[in-house]
């Protein structure tokens, strides 16, 4: 299992994602200006402030050469995980539905949250039990998930709402407490909280590992 973690100018959590993914497989950094996916089985678009989050979070990064390759990879069914800023990039790139707006509290907020696994059958949540609560940190200023109501209805029906904030834990005002969504095909997943910061008992919880383990299981399945 080989993960590729994108690196844009202004990325912050790319090494953290590399370390986390490295616990379940091989993980390499991919520079935004290159075009070689280096044979990776899954791509992670990491957290941080690509291009300073200037203009709109994720707006500039999504045009990078490497993102063009990632878009093609995703269209071919490749696994793509977007975390925080990566989620914003994937929405901007049109790989995921919706948009992420400024938190209703108007502040960057960093807090441990509980995530409820709504759909445990995606390639990113295979290793979770339905309804399981994962303790994972969230830290962002623009994490309010928005999509038109009818679209969210359809997404919920189709199992595209993958994780929600547990009651009381949603500080950003997201529609229906949505924390992470996948595309229709299920191979692209974005979430605001940071599973890569929940992989070691020393620095927090280990619940986030489940996301990376799920991806490895899914990738092995595809291969096998």
């Amino acid at each position, binding site marked *: 299992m080989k993960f590729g973690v994108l690196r844009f*100018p202004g990325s912050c*959590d790319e090494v953290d994602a590399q370390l986390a993914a490295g616990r379940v497989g091989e993980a390499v950094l991919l520079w935004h200006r290159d075009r070689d996916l280096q044979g990776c089985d899954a791509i992670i678009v990491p957290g941080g*402030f690509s291009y300073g989050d200037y203009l709109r979070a994720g707006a500039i990064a999504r045009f990078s050469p490497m993102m063009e390759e990632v878009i093609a990879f995703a269209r071919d069914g490749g696994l793509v995980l977007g975390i925080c800023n990566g989620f914003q990039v994937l929405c901007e790139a049109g790989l995921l539905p919706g948009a992420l707006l400024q938190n209703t509290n108007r502040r960057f907020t960093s807090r441990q949250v509980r995530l409820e696994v709504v759909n445990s059958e995606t390639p990113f949540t295979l290793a979770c039990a339905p309804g399981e609560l994962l303790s994972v940190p969230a830290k962002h200023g623009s994490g309010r998930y928005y999509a038109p109501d009818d679209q969210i209805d359809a997404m919920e029906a189709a199992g595209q709402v993958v994780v929600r904030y547990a009651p009381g834990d949603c500080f950003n005002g997201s529609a229906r407490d949505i924390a992470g969504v996948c595309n229709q095909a299920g191979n692209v997943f974005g979430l605001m909280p940071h599973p890569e910061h929940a992989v070691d008992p020393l*620095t927090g919880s280990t619940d986030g590992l489940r996301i990376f383990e799920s991806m490895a299981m899914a990738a092995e399945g595809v291969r096998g």
Partner: protein
Amino acid sequence: MADAGLPTVEEAMALGLTRGEYELVCEKLDRPPNQVELAMFSLLWSEHCAYKHSKKLLMTLPTEGEFVVMGPGENAGAVDVGDGLVCAFKVESHNHPSAVEPFQGAATGVGGILRDIFAIGARPIAVLDSLRFGDPGTSERSRFLLDGAVSGIGHYGNSIGVPTVGGEVYFEEPYEQNCLVNAMALGLGEREKLVRSAAAGIGNILVLYGASTGRDGIGGASVLASAELGELSEDKRPTVQVGDPFEESKLLECSLELLEAGLIVALQDLGAAGLTSSASEMASKGEVGIDIDVAKVPLREADMEPFEIMVSESQERMLCVVEPGKLDTVIALTDKWEVHGTAIGTVTDTGQMRIFRGEELVGEMPVVALVDDCPLYDLDPAPPAAPIYPPPTATLDPAADLRQALLALIASPNIASRRPLFEQYDSIVQSRTVRRPEESDAAVLQLPGGRGLAVSIDGNGRKVAADPYRGTIGVVLECASNLACAGAQPLGTTNNLNFGNPEKPHIAWQLTEAVRGLGEACRALEAPIVGGNVSLYNEGASGPIYPTPVIGMVGRLPDVTRAGRLGFAREGDAIALVGRFSPALPASELARLRGEALPDGLPDVDIAAVRATQEAVRDAVREGALSSAHDIAEGGLLVAIAESCLAGDVGATLDLGACEDAWSALFGEAPGGFVVSGDPSAIARLAEHTDVDVIGAVGGDRLHVRAGDGEANATLAELREAHRALARLFP
């Protein structure tokens, strides 16, 4: 050189030089300085750059020790943390810019201290902040400043991917007109790869990279750092510097990659006094000359004068020295990171700073005159004849009982939970943070190989105002106590001396006494000073700030999995008061709530005894023998216990036995006291090494204490509610 229109002595004085200093400049040059030269001298001879009122004092501080790799003088100090790694760290102030524009002032303060860290070749791994404002309850301006400073720090640190792992904030009336915003940063580097800032190699090339140069902060260093804020007229206000963390993150990665590839000879950030100070100091340290062509400097505004280019304080710029053969590779790397480098000068053997605009020579000064010849002044210290500070405004009902006092203390802005602040900071990025804010008295970061670093930043202006010497000792001891509770041994210390106008004898006395206390405490703890910063002239119309030395200390843990926690953890654990603790109310937080005047002096401190207690607590934490350890600071014993209850979400029952004065026993403050909890046998073992008094047990959902015939009782829910008091400042 054209000598028409030379600046006058009056203009020199408006830039902050004294008449005598101007005359000395003329003597050094053998002629009056032109505009470029005067601008450069006025900056380098400012208090901020030349430390002319503090250098003699600073020379008394201990700077050497077993772990010191780089002491004061370089961009940051560094201590050895084992396995060939060093921790670089330093604290800096951005007080005056933050008073003008708190968001950008605080943001650029963080940007500046981070550049100091990577300028020596260390990757920044943590930021801490130390903040002082007026009373947030009554002062709208203080709330505005607090809100702006906290968002600015978060904006910069979060965006650049360096965790803000700790800090401190206090609210006292003397900071109303002159807030303090200090920021500390830590970095990790390989000992063998540290780089110094001395320019070397005649014929080598100076490359400037990063942001373009605009009119930011022109006059900043001389005007902002050397004049009392109240004297600043509107037209002297410099342009506000705007921070760009995105640019800095590229600058950081590019600088570390340049160093890793061995492409540069020397590296220096551009901070206060911009190109003037960075180039001159590089030349001075390398004992060489430098030629700079300002026409080559990429500008944000086309029409800038040579002197403006030389003094601009535009942020996010670095200067490096490169061998000619490596220039193309260096430029290519700066292009990769989009921080486009430009060759702007050369290293010469002239011993002169020569400034050109194209072919035209527009300034020429001996490096030695610029950097080393600024006169140093002796202070004229004298203790104040009458109290300097009015008593704080009383907010506690004089009839309050112990329980009401406890709840008022827990809700005091100086003690209430800092969560609404630190939740605006990313404290976990880089995956090193083992103890987040409110989990331990010091932040703890993991290092390769299972070891750890602990760091704390502390200050207590009120106590230093009451007794500059003993108060400062108390601050250094508190910082080391915080490390001890995490299980760490101090390796080195940084400090920021925030004081009023040193030309006034009573301020000079505060400064002198504080530095004496600082040196003595650091010597006794073997925690030498490896760097720091001085911020003087912190005064408003109603007087000086409390003298505020801010101390940052870095320590190490052999086994990071055993880092201490401050929260009670297990029902049934014994609670003990540890240390030879002699609590006293004068200058305490309770005295502030009661509106009591500051005492004239504090009790003597036995530093060696405190150190011994710290070592005993540290060793017990390192053995994993204790469930919790917390030092007793603001609010005294009962507040420390309440904090341990809140952090562990469990109550406690205490009986202090016979007790002459329950108020002093419960709320009095002094250095050297700790509250620990653990298995009774572990506490008994601790008693073999230091004074230990078992006073109660962990359990239940309330805090209940009996002291003599006094008694207090509060539920966890009541304590938690009081502790949330700061949340309303951030609606």
